[in-house]
């Protein structure tokens, strides 16, 4: 195709010195790319720009994120997918695939050997230091036997095209390789946003690979069970690829758990579920080796399960990949790989590797020290990711330091040739630009070998002349196509035979950590909504009272201010002597209640607590929910940096917008999650919080007797904040009276917002939770809530209205509400004790430092 007058290619050639995927050195186009470039050209720059925007939007909307450590802006950063895919023709891929299979098998044999016979060392194929000095060689894993067909079950290789035009192996990933889920999401998104880009091109789909993947997990179960219990172990929402853990969990249908959800007892691993402990057969883990078992490995780890390694030893659970496989992420092995390949397979390596020199050998060390500036130096174990030295950029004193370090422990270092890998077109600022690319590939073990994902995850260097390609530091990704000449079916969501799919079967099996997060989501959401509504009511009242210096003289407003403090428990606030100052400038205090995220009970703090429980649950949320949630975040973030934060209308406006979205969000939760998936816990949390706050509101506003006008104002504010003013008018068609208000919002048996109704609902939900069948007795939480229901049924409106002899206080009302509040509090504690039993922290018997 003509490219010289194609504006998309303008400047593609400038500084053309690299090997490029598309342009050959004679400036002709690689024919494999013809059709794709045609399709792109046909779309035109404007369409491409809008498609890229749409893609960015979709990634953002769907919450495809990754986290960057040590970067305040790095949390939940949107994943970037460039609309121009990377492609390789099937003919070339066949060789690459063979190479990946060979390398998977080879690493599998090395893994078996180094934790078994150590023939490679005994026979002098590899020097002992390459294994024994590698921090990933875990002596605790020595001689463990596995029942699986292969020891290495998942393998991931980073490939890049070298100067000779072949795909080279750059890195081996064997502990808990990431990227599979992102690769899948990239394919789904490209198919959705850019159907035209596939025109006349047949792309291989990864559906079969994921089927194999699922099959591998099922067959990994040590006891040949038909329905093994498989879980995905994540370090938690702060991990850089948490999105993917949650994504794989909902894609495969296996529960996402943290170390806290699992426990080792009686020689087996169990998942703490709401009802009981449930045996776990297979753990697909995204936690690194040394963090997996604080008993035998790193004792400061809270990400693993104490005693796990011994269960593995007893063959009662399978970890995918096995603990200890990190020893294969070992650049010290590279110089010996071909010899190892000859030793085990009697053949040469198919995929070339970067020329590497292990400094533990004298000749190699001398070479490295004499040529240091042309080399890249690495530690053989990558536990410390920062210790890769690009020597050409080092200052003389840094070079000297490195030399000394190499000389002190030469066996720890490997030097590699500097390689310039190929570039591929990336769509940037309306044009195509050559960028370095790195392809992450994936293979999965089965009985007779390994299956390889057709394609994988392509990552692009962030700048034109950048050497580094890594998601750890940010960066862009691409869809990775294996193109073929044969027709392929399109990808469909979840397009595999799911006859063997196992999922959580009911509320009984809900991991208790998930249950706890759902419960707290409900509570925080309820709190956020009630706080926002009440603050809005107060702000509205302030503007209608012609907010001025004499403000404190308004009896009703004073009462409302004090209620704000009571309801949110943000003492002293407007209350007592210390409250005098706040009353001087009430807007300042209200602003602090809204914005101060460090203040317990503030709206900002509630919202941020809600965010945390939300992120821990994201495998349960739908895309719509993500969208609304993200909307709340955005409104809030914009508001935080806005200048005009102090005007009452601005505050009201932002509350209005957030309240609408909170309500939309609540609606979506109810339709997106099943009761058996844990919605019940969310409801209990939500209703309990709302009931508790309503009680606080009534105690604060209805107990004290006021004169007629302030009384009217207060009742109106109460009903407004309760969103019940219209219902009141409809039901009573009368002037606001305290009697009717109490009847409606506390005692009404039909109105869903009344306390009576809420308490009944909580009882109904709690009764549906799993209860101990052995004793047949009511649990404590059942006892407390039924007491509360009994109490509220017994209340009599006339008795509640009785004033004390001074005519100031309705003591009966206050006592009744106090008792109900206390019962709800006890019920909450009892729910935590019964269902979320994480009260006992893991501690070491002896505290040792584990310097790494």
């Amino acid at each position: 195709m003509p490219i010289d007058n194609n504006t998309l290619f303008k400047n593609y050639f400038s500084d053309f010195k690299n090997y490029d995927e598309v342009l050959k050195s004679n400036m002709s186009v690689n024919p494999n790319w013809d059709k794709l470039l045609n399709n792109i050209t046909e779309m035109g720059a404007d369409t491409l720009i809008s498609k890229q925007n749409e893609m960015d939007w979709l990634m953002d909307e769907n919450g495809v994120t990754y986290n960057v450590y040590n970067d305040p802006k790095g949390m939940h950063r949107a994943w970037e997918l460039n609309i121009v895919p990377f492609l390789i023709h099937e003919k070339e891929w066949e060789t690459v695939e063979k190479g990946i299979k060979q390398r998977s098998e080879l690493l599998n044999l090395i893994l078996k050997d180094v934790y078994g016979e150590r023939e490679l060392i005994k026979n002098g194929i590899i020097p002992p230091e390459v294994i024994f000095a590698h921090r990933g060689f875990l002596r605790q894993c020595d001689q463990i036997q596995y029942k699986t067909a292969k020891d290495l079950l998942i393998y991931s290789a980073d490939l890049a095209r070298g100067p000779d035009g072949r795909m080279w192996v750059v890195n081996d990933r064997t502990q808990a390789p990431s990227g599979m889920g992102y690769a899948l999401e990239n394919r789904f998104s490209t198919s959705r946003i850019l159907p035209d880009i596939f025109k006349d091109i047949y792309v291989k789909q990864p559906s079969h690979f994921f089927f194999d993947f699922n099959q591998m997990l099922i067959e990994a179960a040590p006891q040949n069970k038909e329905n093994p219990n498989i879980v995905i172990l994540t370090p938690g929402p702060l991990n850089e690829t948490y999105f993917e853990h949650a994504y794989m969990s909902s894609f495969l249908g296996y529960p996402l758990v943290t170390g806290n959800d699992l426990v080792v007892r009686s020689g087996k691993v169990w998942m703490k579920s709401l009802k009981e402990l449930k045996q776990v057969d297979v753990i697909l883990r995204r936690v690194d080796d040394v963090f997996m078992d604080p008993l035998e490995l790193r004792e400061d780890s809270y990400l693993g399960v104490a005693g796990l390694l011994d269960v593995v030893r007893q063959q009662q659970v399978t970890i995918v990949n096995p603990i200890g496989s990190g020893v294969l992420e070992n650049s010290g092995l590279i110089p010996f790989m071909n010899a190892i390949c000859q030793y085990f397979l009697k053949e040469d390596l198919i995929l070339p590797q970067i020329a590497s020199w292990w400094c533990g050998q004298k000749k190699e060390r001398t070479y490295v020290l004499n040529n240091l500036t042309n080399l890249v130096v690495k530690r053989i174990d990558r536990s410390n990711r920062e210790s890769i030295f690009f020597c050409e950029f080092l200052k003389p004193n840094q070079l000297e330091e490195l030399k000394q370090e190499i000389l002190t422990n030469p066996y720890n270092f490997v030097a590699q040739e500097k390689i310039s890998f190929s570039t591929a077109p990336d769509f940037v600022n309306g044009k195509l630009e050559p960028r370095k690319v790195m392809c992450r590939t994936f293979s999965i073990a089965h009985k007779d070998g390994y299956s390889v994902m057709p394609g994988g995850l392509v990552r692009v260097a962030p700048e034109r002349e950048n050497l580094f390609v890594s998601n750890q530091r940010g960066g862009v990704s691409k869809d990775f196509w294996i193109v073929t000449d044969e027709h392929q079916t399109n990808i469909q969501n979840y397009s595999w035979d799911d006859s063997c799919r196992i999922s959580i079967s009911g509320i009984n099996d809900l991991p208790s950590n998930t249950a706890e997060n759902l419960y707290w989501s409900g509570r925080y959401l309820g709190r956020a909504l009630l706080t926002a509504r009440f603050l809005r009511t107060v702000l509205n009242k302030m503007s209608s009272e012609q907010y001025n210096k004499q403000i404190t003289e308004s009896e009703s407003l004073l009462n409302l201010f004090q209620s704000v403090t009571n309801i949110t428990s943000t003492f002293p606030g407007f209350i007592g002597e210390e409250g005098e100052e706040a009353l001087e400038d009430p807007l300042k205090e209200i602003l602090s209640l809204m914005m101060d995220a460090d203040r317990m009970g503030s709206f900002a703090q509630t919202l941020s607590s809600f965010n945390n429980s939300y992120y821990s649950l994201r495998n349960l949320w739908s895309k719509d929910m993500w969208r609304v949630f993200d909307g709340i975040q955005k409104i809030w973030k914009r508001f935080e940096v806005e200048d005009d934060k102090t005007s009452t209308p601005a505050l009201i406006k932002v509350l209005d917008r957030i309240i609408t979205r909170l309500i939309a969000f609540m609606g979506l939760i109810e339709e997106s999650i099943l009761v058996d998936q844990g919605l019940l816990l969310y409801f209990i949390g939500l209703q309990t919080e709302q009931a508790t706050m309503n009680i606080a509101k009534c105690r604060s506003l209805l107990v004290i007797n006021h004169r007629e006008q302030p009384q009217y104002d207060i009742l109106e504010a109460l009903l407004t904040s309760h969103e019940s003013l219209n219902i009141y008018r409809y039901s009573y068609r009368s002037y606001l009276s305290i009697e009717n208000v109490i009847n409606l919002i506390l005692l009404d048996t039909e109105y869903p917002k009344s306390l009576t109704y809420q308490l009944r609902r909580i009882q109904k939900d709690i009764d549906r939770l799993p209860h101990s069948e052995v004793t047949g007795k009511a649990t404590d939480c059942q006892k407390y809530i039924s007491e509360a229901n009994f109490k509220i049924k017994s209340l009599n409106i006339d008795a509640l209205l009785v004033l004390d002899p001074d005519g100031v206080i309705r003591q009966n009302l206050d006592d009744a509400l106090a008792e109900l509040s206390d019962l709800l509090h006890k019920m909450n504690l009892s729910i935590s004790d019964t269902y979320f039993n994480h009260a006992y922290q893991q501690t070491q018997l002896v505290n040792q430092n584990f310097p790494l």
Partner: protein
Amino acid sequence: MEFTVSHTTSYEYESGVTFCHNIATLKPKSIVGQTLLDYQLIISPTPAEITERLDFFGNTITRFSIQQHHTELKVTALSKILRDSSLQPDIESSATGKTITLETALESLKTNSPEHIDEKQFILESIFIAKISPEMKAYAEVSFKPNRPIFEAAYELMQRIYTEFEFDSEFSTIATPLHEVMKEKKGVCQDFAQIAIACVRSIGLPARYVSGYIETLPPPGKEKLVGTDASHAWFSVYIPTFGWVDFDPTNNQIPKNQHITVSWGRDYYDVPPLKGVIYSTGKNKMKVAVDIRPAV
């Protein structure tokens, strides 16, 4: 000589423990010159599970878990040991072992011959003995010279640590970093052993950490008190053509019949007598009592 050893570790938990997993490395070895005649591990409360296996270094480790609520954990290892160091090869009477120089030793270790392939890992950094400082190397080089026999050098290193370091049980804990001990020249037997190991490794020889007991003798005329002994540690150097030779820098002697070996590893991290993960919210208090006496 026959000894009985009783080693009790007890923990009191302020707010109780619901559940714990533990690993004990308390079973003395049967090796040349030391025979374990009888061994019992008594744990209270009774563990729900208990298993025994050999670890990577050939030490016997016992893993147990207690699944009932308890406020005290008591682990007692009772051993009966027959010790006769005269059965061990004696370095003093080995012409080659006693005279092999550093230069020759390093040359011989360069090869990957099967006889010392496992020993070579004890030259490498380990969890507690990593980033060996130039100061430690310099300290080692005072004794280790290319043409000097390594046995002689190691012996001198032991003597120097004995005279130059002060025994101070208040100064260090197991978490005190090595360079801190080196700087202050204070510590306990574990620290001295680990300093010596760092020194020996810094010049390229294999050294390992030995954990065990030493019999202490009461002052003349007094009766020995129960529980005054403690667990002990020393170091061992691999001398090519001869084998491992133990040195006790805390007592300035080559271990003989008063030393009982329980386990060895790269450093303390590999062989703590008792470790574990407990599920509890409160603090805990630990007590150790060791008693060694000739069997009657």
